[in-house]
């Protein structure tokens, strides 16, 4: 089954401000399973690219979280997920775009990332 997971950064990932529960190793694990990964954050898209490159983690996309629905048109997979820490932004936009949604601690315990 093909899967795409988008990660918010601040409050979601260990490298965020504030730090969240999702580690870079978890992202690498997901990629090793063939999952398409990238970030959807309020951080500038150029900064999102720089973060992945700084930490040496490959990525398939970066975008803003309110553009999740656009992202969906760029990748044809069977399941889409977004991981984020805010109800009014991450969860709302994920649901609007037809993504499944994980809170950071749920994602950190998900078999998709372990």
């Amino acid at each position, binding site marked *: 089954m093909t899967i795409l997971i988008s990660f918010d950064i601040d409050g979601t990932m260990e490298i965020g401000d504030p730090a969240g529960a999702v580690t870079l190793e978890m992202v690498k694990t997901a990629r090793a399973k063939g999952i398409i990964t990238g970030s959807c954050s309020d*951080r500038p*898209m150029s900064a999102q690219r720089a973060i992945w490159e700084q930490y040496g983690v490959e990525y398939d996309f970066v975008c*803003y979280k*309110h553009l999740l629905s656009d992202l969906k048109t760029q990748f044809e997979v069977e399941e889409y997920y977004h991981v984020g820490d805010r109800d009014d932004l991450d969860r709302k936009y994920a649901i609007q775009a037809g993504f499944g949604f994980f809170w950071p601690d749920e994602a950190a315990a998900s078999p998709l990332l372990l």
Partner: protein
Amino acid sequence: MATGYAPSSMYRSREGMGIWEHKGKVAAVGVGHSPTERRWDERPETSVGAWSIMALRNAIADAGVEPDHIDGIVIVPETTTGAFWPDDKPLPQDVINAFVQTDDPLDGVAKLSVEWLLKNMPELTNINYSVYAPVCMSNALNVAAQAVGDGLAHTVLVLKAWHNLEGRYYQGGQNAQDAIGGTSAIRSLWGAPACYGTALQFAEYCRKYGKDHDMMTPFIINSRRNGLMFPEGYWAQHRPEELTPEDYQLARWIAKPANLFDNDIPIMCAASYLFTTAERAKDMKQKPVYVLNHVDSDAVPRGLTPTLDEVEAECALTGRKIYEGAGITAADLSFENMYDGFTQFHQFHLEGLGYRGIGFGDALDFYQTDISIEGPNPVSPSGGNIGSGRSRFWMHTDSIQQLQGRAGGRQITGVNAEIGVSGGPMPLGGNYTVWSATPD
């Protein structure tokens, strides 16, 4: 010594007051900053009180004066606009105990008093004049300049500090209560974000003059670029990220047509300046920067949110007052550092000044020209709040440093730094200072 707010008589609010009676007789010499942080980590040494002391001591050292030569202090007691200590949050007793206390346990934690500062800065032994200025450094500078000019004190420290707590900005205070008093209830009832009023004005501006939001892009990129050359600032210290047109233009709306990057990022920081008489400044460590004038805008809008017409009228009036009191014209400005936190304030201020001859409706076209520090028309060389985070004082530090020739990478090179203006925040309700490398 009880400290109160500055009386209205200290402000220059009216047109027709003539040249400021103390023009060129007051100077800024020392500049002191604390580090910046996104939020407080609740350690004593990073509290807003500790960083205020650090900024004050840095300004004293920068000016090269002995602390006991300082006889006045002007501070802004409020240290936030949107991060209030929650009623149900336990007091940080270890932080409180780390300092000499006043009767208010949040003094030095989420607010500041002169009493707290003097208790914790025993080296300031000769302060005999102290006064509060509301809200902003811009206001405090007006008060300090007038105080020195009037002879209320001869060597004055000016301070503004900001705290920021864990969690989201503007979610506490009255926004967390079940009821809100006054006219703010009408806006808050609908959940309007802070930039809503300015966004409304900007929307009308775009409609009136046939402009669009994307035309703000060069200003945003220029501001962040300048901010990244401001070593005292948040983005330079913590996240040295430039912005691209794509980054800006695709960002989500906060209140359309104001997006995420039209808003500044709340941070912790403190800054202080040392003001003195022009005569005393000659013997201090740094080059004096003379105050040619200070101006207050005290206009009250007819409604809850000022209309574009009101904004333009007030900015034009402010511009006239700035020039009248300083005895200069727009052509004398080497640079401008007007407020930008929201970005969409800036074009109103710029047009009110008639900077480089522009009129109302011209600023966004002006932004498409060379507005860099290397060009002939530098716009916001400080980078402002957009370039360095929410402080409302980067513009003042930069103006002083530009005229002292020590703005580092931000030093304007397309024109000689001779006269600059800084101030804000709101088009209706702001304070402005005209700075000069020479007293006349």
